[in-house]
């Protein structure tokens, strides 16, 4: 049952301490800043976060890490010129890092959404990131066994949603959104606006509404259809 939240704070309710949370974005593109800020305000802690990076500068995921809400991060590229909050937490031994090649990260998330129990990828074979993992030679090529990354919740950003929960994205901000939406038990999406069902061309939908649980719109005009009636509007008719 799709819910439309009046605010980002309403939208992120239900994420518990210790939850595994997929957070969309590649750098800042596609990073759901409003939802992350709300998660920060909620005080939730002890999180395992899955993201390509480990935060940039002083916004979004970086602040969540600065405030020590993240117990463990699963990512491909934590070290950047402006990843100072992660760097400090890591050197202090206050955050656990699971480093995953970027394509393996995306494929493990996809596998969770697609009900795949595990898969063999050639990426990383013979490297230290395959140490301790099952390997297999298939048709003369080496492969590493990788497992799905399931999650309690996903926080992602899309361009628009319709009232059936269908999503479209914008340019390279699409990145991890579609696979994360499918992999989490509870998917929360920050969009610019929510339009009526029928306003998105069915051929152009990137994430079908079946994967979306909660929407929150940044544009108050259309977003706050819910506001008069409390924080969460149940969408009974698309």
């Amino acid at each position: 049952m799709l819910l439309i939240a009046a605010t980002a704070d309403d939208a992120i309710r239900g994420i518990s301490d210790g939850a595994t949370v997929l957070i969309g974005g590649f750098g800042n593109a596609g990073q759901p800043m409003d939802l992350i800020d709300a998660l920060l305000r909620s005080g939730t802690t002890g999180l395992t976060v899955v993201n390509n990076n480990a935060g940039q500068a002083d916004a979004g995921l970086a602040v969540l890490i600065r405030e020590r809400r993240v117990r463990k991060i699963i990512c491909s590229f934590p070290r950047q010129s402006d990843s100072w909050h992660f760097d400090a937490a890591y050197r202090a031994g206050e955050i656990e890092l699971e480093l995953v090649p970027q394509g393996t990260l995306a494929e493990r998330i996809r596998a969770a959404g697609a009900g795949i129990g595990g898969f063999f990828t050639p990426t990383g074979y013979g490297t230290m990131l395959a140490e301790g993992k099952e390997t297999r030679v298939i048709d003369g090529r080496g492969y590493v066994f990788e497992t799905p990354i399931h999650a309690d919740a996903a926080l992602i950003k899309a361009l628009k949603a319709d009232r059936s929960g269908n999503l479209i994205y914008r340019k390279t901000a699409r990145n991890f959104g579609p696979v994360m939406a499918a992999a989490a038990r509870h998917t929360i999406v920050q969009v610019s606006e929510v339009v009526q069902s029928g306003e998105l061309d069915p051929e152009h939908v990137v994430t079908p509404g079946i994967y979306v649980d909660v929407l929150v719109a940044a544009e108050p005009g259309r977003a706050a259809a819910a506001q008069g009636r409390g924080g969460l509007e149940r969408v009974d008719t698309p």
Partner: protein
Amino acid sequence: MNGKLDRGGIARLIAGDIPPGSYVNLGIGQPTLIADHLTPEQNITLHTENGMLGMGPAATGDQIDGDLINAGKLPVTELPGASYFHHADSFAIMRGGHLDVCVLGAFQVSGTGDLANWHTGAEDAIPAVGGAMDLATGAKEVWVMMSLFDRDGTAKLVPRCSYPLTGIGCVTRVYTNEAVFLLDAGSVRVRATYGVPFTGLASRIDVPLLPPAARPRAGDKPAGRPG
């Protein structure tokens, strides 16, 4: 006690039991009848495994479009809020456990929820499986719609399927012309009977049956799936 149900009656019963807002796949054959009994107020979204969510009623006349068909290859229509996707994405929806309910026909269902609905196992039969195994394995709830007895009077709810299996322990409900069965962790409870008393039913079926609960309700909570 009401009379036995006909196919339309079973379809109406199932339609009424699907929780509002559900994403549902109706298997080819009998279960497609269910769509006719869904109401707009239920806000049910239909999935067809050949690549669509938001499938509408059968197409007629000018609506018929060879590029818009259902899993049974019959022309259908598109509702507002629909979406199209390719086959791997469509079966990821199924295998990934995202469908709330799927309703399938069956040759046999076992008391532990095993399903046989794709192959009679006959020597000269040409096997064809389609999406049956994916649906049986993937949906959160797998409901079966079938006649309780075959033409020669043999029960299709059995201790152990003799036909080749489609999926193991996957069926949670069985809707038939004479009764509705709720399957849960190896036990089979009769939710209601139609045209026969519980005792009469139990004597004709080789699976231990629990009687209807004291106050049966038509829309009781779907049984949870183990695992």
